């Protein structure tokens, strides 16, 4: 009983190995299907499985701990995205950041941050199973047009440089749209909306012969 109370804030919800996990798009791949990439495909789509941790607090308070734990500096400017080797950090609001981490890593990072920060006024919320990353690659023009058909935000490279991420409207839902490098766009999508976003992108991407690659880390893993 008392044990439960002490651990309440830092509850490791990630299942042990051997428990089958289903990504938010696992069923969509089955019931909607995955058009195979072909020679005409100008856009490729895949789901990437990560852990997601929301960080709340003051930038100055969080920055040092984040550097120590993740080796990344906390994005200080609005809409900034720092992309590291294994993790990324994105500004969501003046007191809110999104850390995208290797799957199964959220609890370790949260615990490490909490211990580094001691009594500081911060908050962390694990939302790993609540959202997923849809990655889009392909030729620049087709990618940009697919995004223009989908989001209201200006995705021109002059306005949306690498290292930027925004929360915006996609079709009739919201997504986080990120540009981690020259090659890729990422959509961070809420789990319950993932099927809708997936179907939307397939439909809007038809003219670009969009193809879906099943990530080895996606779907059911054992």
């Amino acid at each position, binding site marked *: 009983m008392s044990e439960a109370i002490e651990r309440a804030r830092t509850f490791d919800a990630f299942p042990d190995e051997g428990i089958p996990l289903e990504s938010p798009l696992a069923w969509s791949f089955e019931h909607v299907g995955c058009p195979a990439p072909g020679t005409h495909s100008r856009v490729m789509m895949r789901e990437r499985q990560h852990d997601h941790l*929301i960080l709340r607090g003051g930038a100055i308070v969080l920055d040092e701990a984040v550097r120590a734990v993740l080796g990344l500096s906390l994005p200080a400017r609005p809409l900034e995205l720092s992309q590291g080797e294994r993790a990324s950090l994105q500004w969501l609001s003046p007191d809110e950041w999104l850390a995208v981490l290797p799957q199964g890593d959220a609890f370790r990072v949260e615990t490490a941050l909490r211990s580094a920060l001691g009594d500081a006024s911060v908050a962390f919320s694990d939302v790993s199973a609540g959202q997923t990353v849809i990655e889009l690659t392909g030729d620049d023009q087709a990618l940009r047009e697919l995004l*223009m058909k989908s989001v209201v935000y200006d995705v021109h490279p002059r306005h949306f440089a690498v290292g930027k991420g925004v929360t915006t409207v996609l079709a009739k839902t919201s997504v986080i749209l990120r540009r981690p490098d020259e090659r890729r766009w990422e959509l961070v999508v809420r789990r319950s909306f993932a099927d809708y976003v997936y179907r939307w992108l397939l439909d809007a991407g038809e003219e670009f012969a969009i193809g879906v690659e099943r990530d080895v880390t996606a779907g059911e893993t054992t």
Partner: protein
Amino acid sequence: MSQPNRLDTGGLIDRSRPLRFTFNGKEYSGFHGDTLASALLANGVDVVNRSFKYSRPRGIVAAGAEEPNAVVQLGHTEAEQVPNVRATQQALFEGLTARSTNGWPNVQRDLMGTIGKLGGKLMPPGFYYKTFMAPASLWMTYERYIRKSAGLGRSPLERDPDIYDRINRHCEVLVIGAGPAGLAAALAASRSGARVILCDEQERFGGSLLDGQALLDDRPALQWVEQVLEELAANPEVTLLPRTTANGYHDHNFVTLHERRSEHLAHCAPRVEGRRQSRSRLHRVRAARVVLATGAHERPLVYAGNDVPGNLLCSAVSTYIRRYGVVPGKRLVVSTSNDDGYRAALDWLDAGREVVAVADARPAPDGELVEIARARGIRILPGSAVVEARGEQRVASARVATIDIDAFRVTGASETLDCDTLASSGGFSPVIHLASHTGTRPSWRDDLIAFVPNLPRGMLAAGAAGGTFGLAEVLAEGRDAGLEAASQAGFESAELILPAVASRRDGAAVALFQVPHEKPTLRAPKQFVDLQNDVTAAGIELATREGFESIEHVKRYTAMGFGTDQGKLGNINGMAIAARCLGRSIPEVGTTVFRPNYTPVTFGAIVGRYCGALFDPERYSALHQWHVEQGAEFEDVGQWKRPWYFPRTVNGKRETLHEAVMRECRAVREGVGILDASTLGKIDIQGPDAREFLGRIYTNKWAKLGVGKVRYGLMCKDDGMVMDDGTTSCLAEDHFLMTTTTGGAAGVLEWLELWHQTEWPELDVSFTSVTDHWATMTVTGPMARELMRELTEGIDLDREAFRFMDWREGKVAGVPARVFRISFTGELAYEINVQAHAAMHVWKALFAHGEKYDLTPYGTETMHVLRAEKGFIIAGQDTDGSVTPEDLGMQWAVGYDKPFSWVGQRALTRSDTARQDRKQLVGLKPRDPSVVLEEGAQIVLDPDHPIPMPMVGHVTSSYYSPTLETGFALAVVKGGHQRMGETVYLPCVDGKVHEAEIVSTIFLDPKGERQNV
């Protein structure tokens, strides 16, 4: 198939590519590069429609978007039908099929034409309102026939085979119109590196340069156009959109463009490599600056019989001859108030046809074009105008007379000239529609005899759209506007050298709108102002005589400028006539408001891909696949798809809703059931002030809720009305997990943020939605503990160790879980939260172990029955924003003595909220247990009271209870809490009156013994 009016040479058509098309069932041929209108004229088709009100035969008048008559129904098959297409804007393609929209049974022999002819005089403005008003019940019948005969196009009865889409664009400079001004503007702006979008509604860029004879740098203007387009096309920051109409100008430079992507190719969009392409596309453009280069529309003159086919605009005559190689007649009479009218006469002469005369309203015309016409032997009649056109299906003659414009009368004897075509020009009106879509009114300029736009912030005008007409000036203004627009958006570009243009010396024009007739306007033959809506000069005069003085009222009374026309040709003439009748000046009378859309937009383009399966998001829980595979029926709760019930097939027969719900209810009350409750909103609340915040936002107390405990909370707005409810668990001293209703999740999160950010920023607390992270499964029923024991690790499930309204952490089916002992069914219940990735594993494990307990999945309907038996409310069903906690009888959930005046507290003592006769939540038990009252049914105290009966309340929830073996309901009744045991009556639509007793809202286990075991 011959094309009698086609010239052998000239124009921008390709005579080596003939195209066949069908109009009103008859086959014709045209050429690649034609519009439907130019091809019809080439084939000598005079009558293209019947008019809206009088059913008079009508022909093509214009060559662009301003065409009022040639509005056709397009499509070969039923599914392809597209209404309200302007033939002047429809490119010809092989196999095109079109019909007139008006005319019943057909345009040649028209039933309403007879009525119009006989009754023309009897159909003044307001005719339909006046004639068909009474009895009102018959209006629907009248309307059907009026519509059928008047014709407004029709929508297809079959599903549209095409797809459509929308695209969001952002640019620094949007140039609307690709005539000389627009091209110069786009070119100048593009050289700065700014993002430029250039759109034009026509098939080709070039605007007036496409049908003029202008020389730029001593070369044909089209060469300059090609050169500019080549440069623009090579610039990756430039987007060129031909066949794209800027239809709406909205706030802050948001412009909607309608691009017709395949309408010029076929009725259905051709596939590319087997993939569907959108037929048309709506571009939603946010531009830093907009350059309005929409040009001008020529105004026709208003004279008697000006609607007989063969009456055209002067500029349209030139366009058909020069651009399409079509001369729309043999013998031409021109009536003009300016030099531009002569252009048509000269082009007609160049085409080798006869110009009978030019009637020029000016006493002494002297411009350059006048001199040329005179030199070429054209008969010019100064100080005159065509006062009347004659003919039935085609102009046969024109009556010309000298006129006195100021005195508005005919001064001399008239001469009748044989002709088949009559071209008129009253000058040019800048196309200002877009500039006034956000409410800005244009200004009248006497020197131009036209309204010019007052520009909204962020818009620049160039060329004729702003009232500048000479080609050299237009080009310069376009360039300057492009440079200025780019510069204002932060992009500077180098000087742009424009081609040299020989300027033309024009004589001054006179202001002529309606041509006087020998008879007074009210008795003269019809002089049409708005051809599409059949508005005449007499109609406007009559309206002013009947007391309509505001131009907006005149518009509504006469229908001038209504509908798809939006007053493109007629508005200025109509205002001028109203001004004359009212004895005012045109600026005093002012203009009516133009509204989007400038031309009709197909619904498909507006809808885009928001149709069918993508109409609205469908939100799925992590267990959705299982529900689908089990054959669940679903219910929409907000955007969520929730299992409604799980019908089983018994003896080959699928259960009904009622049967399934009875079975599911019994399973929960007698065994164990399971519900997917993942859709409940979940908000992670952290911070040292989290507890204080909860105390302020909820009605009840939170100060003493211990770690490991759960509490039900009620949330009000500050007006004291219940807005949401749910349970909140204390995870740690500074950490709480709040649940909300499924539909209220997003609103509650925003609500918490609102109070935190605007009223109590000093509280150290943060809110994060974790709805999608946790999957929630409710295991409930007398056997729930036995089932849970089989799968749970790390939690002592004994009653004393894990009490009602406690939560514990452990593992369920090997997966880390938080388990909450809360109950929405009134039975022993465990709510299990696991990370959603593992939800399916846990759910299936529960069923694997649950088989021996006959674990029964239940849906929202059973959930509703079970909770209603317990009197648990559903916010949004039993409340509607006008219900206080006290109205609900939930004083137990109100902390009256909390130190902080929580949200909603003060309002509870307002005189209105403290009334004793407010509608209060009660239970209703029908006298006849087999009756299930209708939700929403009204409640009366005296069923014999004469109608209207005073209504004292209504049913909010109503079900049949298999446990109680009776129908039962929750309802709100005036003063209901004081009416226990009273009988009320519920009159039904079918005439029956049900009788019910007011009882407690708690129908089952009032002491809560079943859930607390």
